[in-house]
């Protein structure tokens, strides 16, 4: 879906990678990445297995730091105009404003309300009214409010797979982040649930900037505005989704799109 309004082109990109190299101890897994994600647009990261898509995604909220000796060895990552590796960046604030949804839906074994309110509670919100409003807003955005408004105290594990993943999305957007990162959000779901999540992703782009990783090329075509194709840690091609899929400029991109390798 191409961006139609030109006003977005004047705003700086929300997420920007400038010449980023990333390595796990001695092995470099990302080489010289130049990438940017526009505000209120959906950006897809595609590529064969092991090309570094998830690593790239996790750089945006510095989740890779959970692994020992994983670091950005060159270049900078900018989110909302600030280098996130600066010393004065508070990691909890960064992660409050950059939400993440994982591949396998993992709601906490608590009630639906407690799941969605989790992010707000850890940032110090305790007033019941504020929490109630935020939970309702998040569940509405995730198209779950009508279904679940009467059973907010039910254990979240009793929901179906698709509902659980939407609950995880609601949990991630409850803190009102600017960026939403999604790591293969539909790979564990059935086709109907997948379609629901894809619709949701397009709706979410109205309020948030979405970056997602996918194995499914058709999904990238259906949902995203911009696509980045990675191979073995290098960014091969990045551009408008329609352009990239109909007129790929690189031979490697063309081979991948044709299905020669995956």
């Amino acid at each position, binding site marked *: 879906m191409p961006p139609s309004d030109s006003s977005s082109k004047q705003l700086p990109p929300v997420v920007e990678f400038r010449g980023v190299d990333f390595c796990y101890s001695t092995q470099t897994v990302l080489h010289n990445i130049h990438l940017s994600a526009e505000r209120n647009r959906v950006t897809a990261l595609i590529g064969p297995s092991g090309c570094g898509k998830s690593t790239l995604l996790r750089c945006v909220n510095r*989740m890779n730091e959970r692994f020992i000796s994983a670091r950005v060895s060159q270049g900078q990552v900018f989110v909302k105009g600030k280098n996130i590796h600066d010393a004065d960046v508070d990691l909890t604030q960064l992660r409050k404003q950059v939400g993440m949804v994982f591949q396998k839906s993992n709601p906490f074994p608590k009630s639906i309300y407690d799941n969605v309110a989790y992010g707000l509670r850890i940032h110090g919100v305790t007033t019941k009214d504020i929490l109630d409003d935020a939970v309702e807003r998040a569940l509405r955005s995730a198209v779950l409010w009508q279904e679940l408004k009467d059973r907010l105290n039910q254990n979240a594990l009793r929901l179906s797979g698709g509902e659980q993943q939407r609950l*995880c999305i609601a949990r991630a957007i409850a803190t009102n982040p600017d960026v939403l990162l999604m790591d293969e959000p539909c790979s564990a779901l059935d086709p109907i649930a997948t379609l629901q999540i894809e619709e949701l992703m397009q709706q979410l782009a109205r309020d948030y900037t979405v970056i997602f990783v996918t194995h499914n090329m058709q999904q990238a075509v259906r949902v995203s505005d911009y696509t980045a194709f990675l191979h073995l840690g290098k960014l091969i091609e990045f551009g408008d989704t329609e352009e990239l899929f109909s007129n790929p400029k690189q031979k490697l991109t063309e081979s991948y799109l044709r299905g020669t390798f995956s």
Partner: protein
Amino acid sequence: MIPTPIHPKIDPANPFVGQQSRNQTLESFVRWVLRFGTLVIVSVTAAIVLHIAVKGAPVALSREWPFVNVAFLTELPSTLHVIQDNQGHIIETDVNGADVIKMQLGANLREEKTISYSGGGILGPIVGTAMLVIVSVGVALFLGVASAIYLSEYASHGKFIEMVRLAILNLAGVPSVVFGLFGLGAFVLTAPVFTNSPLDRAIFTLPLGFTTLSFQGWDTCVLSGGFTLAFVILPVIITASEQCLQAVPLEFRETSMALGATRWQTIWRAVLPFATPGILTSSILGIARAAGETAPIMFTAALAFKDKLPWQKDQIPLPADASLFAHWEQSIQRFLAIFTESVQALPYHIYTLAARIPQNEYSERAQYGSVFVFLILVASLAATSIWMRRSLRAKYKW
């Protein structure tokens, strides 16, 4: 000559017919050996429990409502007087009743026997054991879970941490008597106390202006015994807690961190609640062990005889017009006395009855009664722990 292979019987209707080969025989043999082993364990346990139940139940239970021997459970141990008169009647009573009966019988008295600790009841030991268990499990759970959290969530992997784990495992193998001596040296004789008049035997004193921090020990009391017992059960609690924490899926921690939680918030909200059922189960073993250990409390908490319960400590009676504050102060002192007085304890009481006084039918009766009550006490503590674990697991199941 090459031996010809033995072909199994081929049944045209059933291609999967069983073959009576050596493997099958070995299989049944092993199965019976394992059954026999289990049977031995079960019979030994049953023998012990039934023996105690059969001999102890008549002492601790009674035939009418309320079906327990209330006197046995609510009186302090006292000396049993057995008076026999010339007609051969035997009367059992305590020291006051004995005086009365002797006066009544006069010259009719044939003989009087006194058996220590076998009269009255076992309230003192029950209360003492309960206090010791509460203090030791409380201290051990706090220290143990804190160590387990540090070891599994915060500590970086390396040689030092492996040595710490090895040290904790070694602690599990230390004999109980050694723990008792450790408790004697560390808590009874040299633990720090705030006091205005330090004793001469204190190894170190630190004057602090309005009071003195004196390392003179806590003396034999529930605190010393409780802390010593806490160290006895600490290794079990640490290793079990660590395993429970590591059993919580990694995804919970990842999600929590991705939402912007600090490490402690993650542990407190997304890890500990789900590890708690397992930690409480591990405390079952701890409770049973803390209740039953004799050697660690021999030097640090227990007395053979005490005529008062801990909160009945003697205090200066207040004058009639004493202020409310003075009454409050006395009540608080009474409460604190629970922890600073020495107590009787069930295992030590059983030891005294069995090994420190001459044996006869009366002392044997008291022994079995005490052991029976002791078993019931430990079993009910364990049952409470299992019930708590069950209800928590239902709430936090994943």
